């Protein structure tokens, strides 16, 4: 499919998409999005707000003339950040998880960047006009929102309960659905737990900071013994300061790699679940139509059969697209997770080595001090 219709293809390279800057103005975050034109070295930079991202996502959802749209696993868009409500830190954490952490919305930007890259790299979605205009037009793509259409989450939630457990005709999908349910749940839990760990590490770093600062209070130059003790305190303060930096580093490592990876994984699983659900809905619709056709009176039978055929065709199309998507999703998510895991492991390893070195220096210094 890719590149088959050159004229519709995206004019920028997917890998070059970066969110280079973010500015906060009250409650509004504005992101600077830079990308590289495919056929030239020229770069494009546009400014977008969250509403624009939302518009893009809705546009993708409601893309017309795309067969089997409902079988596509849409890259998940992070939910909206509310920066001004700093007092509701815990609420933001609940809503955004890892994305609320990090300085200056770094992780949030990373997540948005990843979203755009995924959309641009998607073989079908990249042809969408909305994406092109989102990335290139300096004008904001318009504020038309509210076209939730079939993907309205609220209505979905109600139906979900009923249709979730609907038995599938296809074993492949039935399995996929089961696995997806498991993975979605456990990846979500894992993300939350890792978040707890990171939060604790940060608290620990803060506590170390307090401790290190308080140690300075003990400094006293009155006499020799006091000076000796002060030296010890200052040394300890240095050590604790090092411990603090260690924890900060470990926490940010966790956050920037495994944390984002798990968060993405968890949101992607949700997205797959939504796709599977849409397909299940279609399946149910088909089955209803089939029943209707069987019971239909002769005069209406033909109409019904035609209708059934159309639905069946649509369902099959969705199923085939879904199958491709699922395969693509699996391979890509393993790859993504792998890179995150490796990056994480390497970062932690480096940090551990760095601080082992630092600690042994401190230890050496302390021992020398001891023998003085």
């Amino acid at each position, binding site marked *: 499919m890719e590149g088959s219709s050159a004229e519709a293809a995206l004019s920028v390279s997917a890998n070059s998409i970066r969110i280079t800057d973010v500015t906060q103005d009250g409650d509004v975050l504005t992101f600077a999005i830079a990308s590289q034109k495919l056929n030239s070295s020229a770069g494009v930079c546009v400014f977008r707000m969250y509403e624009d991202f939302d518009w893009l996502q809705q546009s993708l959802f409601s893309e017309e003339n795309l067969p089997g749209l409902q079988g596509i696993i849409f890259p998940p868009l992070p939910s909206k950040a509310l920066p001004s409500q700093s007092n509701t830190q815990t609420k933001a954490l609940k809503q955004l998880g890892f994305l609320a952490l990090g300085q200056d919305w770094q992780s949030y930007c990373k997540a948005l960047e990843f979203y755009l890259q995924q959309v641009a790299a998607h073989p079908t979605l990249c042809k969408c006009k909305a994406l092109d205009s989102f990335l290139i037009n300096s004008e904001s793509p318009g504020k038309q929102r509210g076209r939730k259409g079939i993907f309205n989450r609220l209505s979905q939630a109600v139906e979900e309960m009923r249709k979730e457990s609907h038995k599938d005709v296809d074993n492949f999908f039935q399995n996929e659905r089961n696995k997806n349910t498991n993975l979605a749940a*456990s990846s979500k839990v894992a993300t939350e*737990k890792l978040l*707890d760990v990171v939060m604790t590490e940060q608290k620990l770093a803060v*506590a170390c900071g307090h401790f290190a600062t308080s140690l300075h209070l003990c400094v006293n130059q009155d006499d020799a013994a006091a000076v000796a003790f002060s030296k010890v305190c200052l040394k300890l303060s240095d050590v604790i300061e090092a411990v603090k930096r260690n924890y900060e580093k470990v926490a940010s490592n966790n956050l920037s790699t495994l944390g984002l990876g798990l968060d993405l994984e968890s949101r992607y699983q949700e997205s797959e679940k939504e796709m599977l659900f849409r397909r299940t809905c279609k399946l149910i619709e088909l089955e209803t139509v089939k029943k209707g056709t069987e019971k239909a009176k002769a005069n209406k039978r033909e109409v019904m059969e035609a209708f059934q055929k159309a639905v069946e065709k649509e369902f099959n199309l969705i199923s085939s697209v879904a199958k491709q998507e699922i395969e693509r999703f699996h391979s890509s998510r393993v790859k993504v997770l792998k890179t995150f895991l490796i990056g994480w492991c390497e970062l932690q390893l480096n940090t551990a080595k760095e601080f082992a070195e630092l600690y042994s220096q401190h230890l050496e210094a302390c021992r020398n001090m*001891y023998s003085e």
Partner: protein
Amino acid sequence: MAASSERSPPPFPDSEEPELLEDSDEGADAFTGTSISEMDSPSPDSTRPTKDIFNDPIEEIFSDPLSTINSEPQKKVDTKIHSPSSDEAVDLFSDALDDDSEVMSSPEVQNPIPDLLDEPVEAPKSDVLGEPPVHKNAAGQQDVLEDPPKGSSKSSSVKKAASAELFDDDEDEEDLFNETPKVVTKKPQPSGPPVDVFTEVKSDVKVKPQVKDDPTDLFTEEALTAPAPKPSASSSSSSRTNGVHSEEQDLFSEATVELSLDSPLNDRKKKDDVKPSVSAPAAPVASSSSKASSKTLEELEEEESEDKFDLNISVTNPEKVGDGMNAYMAYKVSTQTSLTMFRSKTFTVRRRFSDFLGLYEKLSEKHSQNGYIVPPPPEKSILGMTKVKVGKEDHSSAEFVERRRAALERYLQRVVSHPSLLQDPDVREFLEKEELPRAVSTQTLSGAGFLKMLNKATDAVSKMTIKMNEQDVWFDEKIQDVENEEQHMRKLHVMVESLVNHRKELSGNTAVFAKSVAMLGSSEDNTALSRALSQLAEVEDRIEQLHQEQASNDFFTFSELLADYIRLLGAVKGCFDQRMKVWQRWQDAENMLQKKREAEAKLLWANKPDKLQQAKDEIAEWEAKVTQYEREFERISATVRKEVIRFDKEKARDFKRQIVKYLESLLNSQQQLIKYWEAFLPEAKAIA
């Protein structure tokens, strides 16, 4: 005789004592033989002058009373004893024999005695008998009073007890006197001015005895052993005081050293070799004064031998003994040492918690009043112990037991690392003795605890009322420092506590995360990814262990350390309070003296001579007290100062040690982490 002659010549200044001893022991024979020759010439002369002196000086003294006396005697005491004593000694002897068995003062007097001996007995006695006796006694007493105060201040508390003992001794002495009266007399005479005082002194005899701190101890011991040696004992006591006087200006410790030297000499003369060693260093029988002196002695030794300090104490194997609410924890206290004061190189005893508390009670009772910092034991924890008693073998009770074990170990190590406390017989008993008397345990403790609470309450009140006018800048600053430091420590302790709590939380969260990763891995389809995830779960499990270890490291290295030092700073403050109390006592005495003087002035003005004498007596009494209390204050100040300096040093060393330990643990856990990550990296890379 031979022995006496040998000794007397060399030490002359200090030697007086030995001579005295000889005299007493060997009694009249010796006197007649050797001493007579010497004494003869001086004695007759001396007797006359003394009489004269008495008459004149007395009047003068009365008018200016104590002040003049005090100043002179103190300075002169040593010198006086030598020369003048011989002359006047004769008179004194007679007095002593006849009237005053109480003459107690005589022991001091005795120093000079040897020379005097012969003469005094014969001629002087008769002369003196009528009036002089009184004078002599008084004179001797005065000397004693003035001189001893210095010594007494150093040795502190003993005085009162000593006085009582002295009286008893006196009686014994009387007998001795009869035999060796000559000896006694010498001293009193030397103190020319004292003679005047006689009248006063007599009435106040008590005061005088007080002055002699050390003598009392000796007396008692000697008395126990044999009646004959008593005179010698008295002499020895006097010698001690003398020694003290000379060295008073020097540090207390030195003085004590000399004392110890003196006493052994005396003992030898007495032929009781055993006595000296027993009395000075350890003997529990000895009064508090003797203890004090012994402590200082030991301290000196310790300071010298500090480098070779070799004593390892470990508290291990906490074990529950008994059931239900009567259950208690017993700990194994193992000691490893090369110190010769212990019977063997390694030994082990079982002790229960209340034994540790009992040890503290004993130590603090004995030592904190002298300004020593007695390391406090861990607090009693009813909650923690109840849990243990109930027998739930859960995590928190295990942690409690371990925590207490470590605290007890640190406590003991602190006790034995204190040079003076290490020498305490109770400490040795605690470490060595198989069975400790059960009396130490809880019942006494609860009583003591209640008393302590009362004491603390009264202390708090007196602290508010005592407004000490601090003269010593060092103390002024140090007290402030300690106050600040305690606050800082408390703050740090809070910080560390929160640190430890966060660590525990982290460890808990890591464990949960590890579980959730394991879950994720198990529901993962991709086999490589699934394996990597379950590996990751294992890694996280191990990291959780690391966090847990680190948490307990944080706790034991810092939190407990800080808690210990908060308690120790409390003890330091206790020392300062103790010093303040002594100061207050001194000031009170000063005020009282002032009042007495005013009263005397009023009497003089009102021309009531009958009451005047009593007033003078009282003034003398209070003057002695003031000097004594002032000395005591100086002594406790010196001790506290030394203790605080030592404490500061120990503290810096302690913290350094802990930091090194802490860094080692940090380094170790980082190295573990490196290992874990290095093992995991290939797994991550193997994901296809």
